[in-house]
């Protein structure tokens, strides 16, 4: 298959739009070739995951582009960065690390992007619409945009998202194209009690299970007994994109490209049908916990970033309570959501409880946790998946209620009743 570039693409490649666009187009075109694209297509939005500071090479890449005067050509939101720009000093972030991470923030901000600094850009004003062609990085954002919103992005990595944003072009491959958006594997929920469908912690557990079983295919979930809310779908998607490489799922009767089972599969037969039982769910829930200890140093919520609705749900659960003095209680969110929550009165109860809020970043992308914090509790499958490897911390998964109860008690407490069923 050969790649045909438009006249405008070729002009960018020759440097007609400046050296930064030339480098970006060179990368887009080479990757289009590698991935077998016949052409590039126009995008009208981008989300940049490259903002996450990893080390010198990523910073050199950002500063090379910025130094050549790179500007994005489509509305572009920014993912989490390496630090909470205004509050990093309250944590264990080393100052030279902070300087580097900050340089990376400045570089990406200089390109005309919107400094949303969030891994949940779909819960900001930069939410793409149904059918919109976009180039998004950040695995949880990709799966949400494709599945829940019906926008179209391939599973793009760091460093590529920004090249698409600068050129306004992306390879015409994968999930950009209708024919590649059909479901492939069928997961049927069998005899799972409705009370579990109604529980928040069902979604990350189900996501972890389906991600593990699906890997890079498109799963279709049939048999939902309730209409999950947006934050439940967010938690589910983030789980599938951590334990697997899922970039899109269909939930029959719930997500926009799956009004019926047949439509989810574009009329094809599933490659495989897997019935999900309570035993499988229990096993998936066990997998998300990495220690038998009931010791607790910190509760961490907000992966992906806490939404306004989640602040609203959490606030009344904390009223009249105090966290245990030996336990930290952290919520990570975006600046925008935190300010809205503040205005709505959902933040004061958090502070009264003894909670802290971190914005712009998260525990996985900022070296913010002091050494003495070893045992974490979370309601996020994504945190539970990555924390042991990235942070070398022990983690226990629980529901939001479990997390609050444990923070008050100062040790891990989990309500097992809904999982016995």
């Amino acid at each position, binding site marked *: 298959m050969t790649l045909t570039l438009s006249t405008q693409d070729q002009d960018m490649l020759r440097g007609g739009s400046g050296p930064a666009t030339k*480098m970006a187009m*060179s*990368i887009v075109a*080479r*990757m289009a070739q*590698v*991935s*077998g694209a016949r052409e590039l297509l126009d995008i009208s939005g981008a989300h940049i*995951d*490259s903002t*996450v500071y*990893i*080390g*010198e*090479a*990523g910073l*050199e*890449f950002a500063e*090379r582009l910025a130094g050549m005067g790179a500007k994005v050509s489509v509305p572009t939101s920014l993912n989490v960065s390496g630090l909470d720009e205004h509050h990093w000093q309250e944590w264990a972030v080393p100052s030279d690390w902070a300087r580097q991470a900050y340089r990376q923030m400045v570089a990406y901000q200089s390109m005309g992007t919107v400094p949303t600094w969030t891994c949940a850009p779909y819960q900001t004003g930069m939410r793409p619409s149904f059918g919109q062609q976009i180039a998004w*990085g*950040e*695995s949880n954002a*990709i799966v949400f945009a494709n599945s829940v919103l019906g926008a179209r992005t*391939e*599973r*793009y*990595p*760091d*460093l*590529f*998202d920004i090249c698409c944003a600068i050129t306004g072009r992306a390879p015409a491959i994968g999930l950009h194209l209708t024919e590649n958006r059909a479901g492939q594997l069928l997961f049927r929920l069998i005899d799972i009690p409705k009370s579990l469908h109604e529980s928040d912690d069902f979604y990350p557990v189900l996501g972890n299970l389906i*991600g593990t079983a699906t*890997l*890079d295919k498109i799963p279709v979930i049939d048999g939902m007994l309730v209409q999950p809310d947006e934050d439940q779908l967010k938690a589910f998607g983030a789980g599938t*994109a*951590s*334990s*697997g*490489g899922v970039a899109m799922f269909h939930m029959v009767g719930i997500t926009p490209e799956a009004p019926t089972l047949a439509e989810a599969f574009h009329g094809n037969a599933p490659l495989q049908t897997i019935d999900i039982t309570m035993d499988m769910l229990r096993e998936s829930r066990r*997998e998300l916990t*990495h220690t038998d200890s009931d010791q607790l140093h910190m509760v961490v919520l907000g992966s992906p970033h806490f939404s306004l609705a989640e602040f609203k749900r959490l606030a009344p659960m904390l009223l009249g309570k105090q966290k245990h003095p030996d336990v930290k209680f952290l919520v990570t969110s975006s600046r925008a959501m935190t300010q809205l929550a503040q205005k709505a009165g959902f933040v004061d109860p958090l502070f009264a409880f003894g909670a802290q809020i971190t914005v712009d970043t998260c525990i*996985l992308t900022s070296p913010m946790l002091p050494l003495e914090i070893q045992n974490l509790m979370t309601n996020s499958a994504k945190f539970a*998946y*990555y924390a*042991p*490897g*990235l942070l070398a911390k022990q983690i226990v998964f629980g529901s939001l209620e479990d997390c609050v109860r444990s923070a008050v008690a100062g040790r891990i407490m989990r309500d097992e009743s809904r999982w016995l069923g």
Partner: protein
Amino acid sequence: MAGLTLQGRVIIQGEARGSALVSGEPLSFWGGYDWKTGEIIDRRHMLSGAIAKDKILAVPFTRGSSTTTAVLLEAIRAGTAPAAIITTDVDFFFALASVVADELYTTPLPLIALAEQDFAQLKTDDEVQITNNGTVLITR
């Protein structure tokens, strides 16, 4: 010593030689690869604890985080990357790290895709040589 020659598809051209580190399980480099040491750190992965630096790493494809590319790019710059990576198909995340390493440092990482049945013949500790035209020579 036995020899085996497999023909792969060149994703990013290059020559490499090293001992193989093989898993049928996909891997995320973010949270899965320590670019300061080259250790596989995904504690749920079968290669957890293995050092992939200078090895011929064979994993079918990447899973999870979009930050995998950035981590591999750091490893290439720091000299802690595998000598080459073998997958079962084009892996966009690995390929991009290699293309960007070429743009920034002119040090692309060789990437080869093998058909699944050929990939299945690779074993950890095989001595593997990769040539410019995608041939994978194995001695064990």
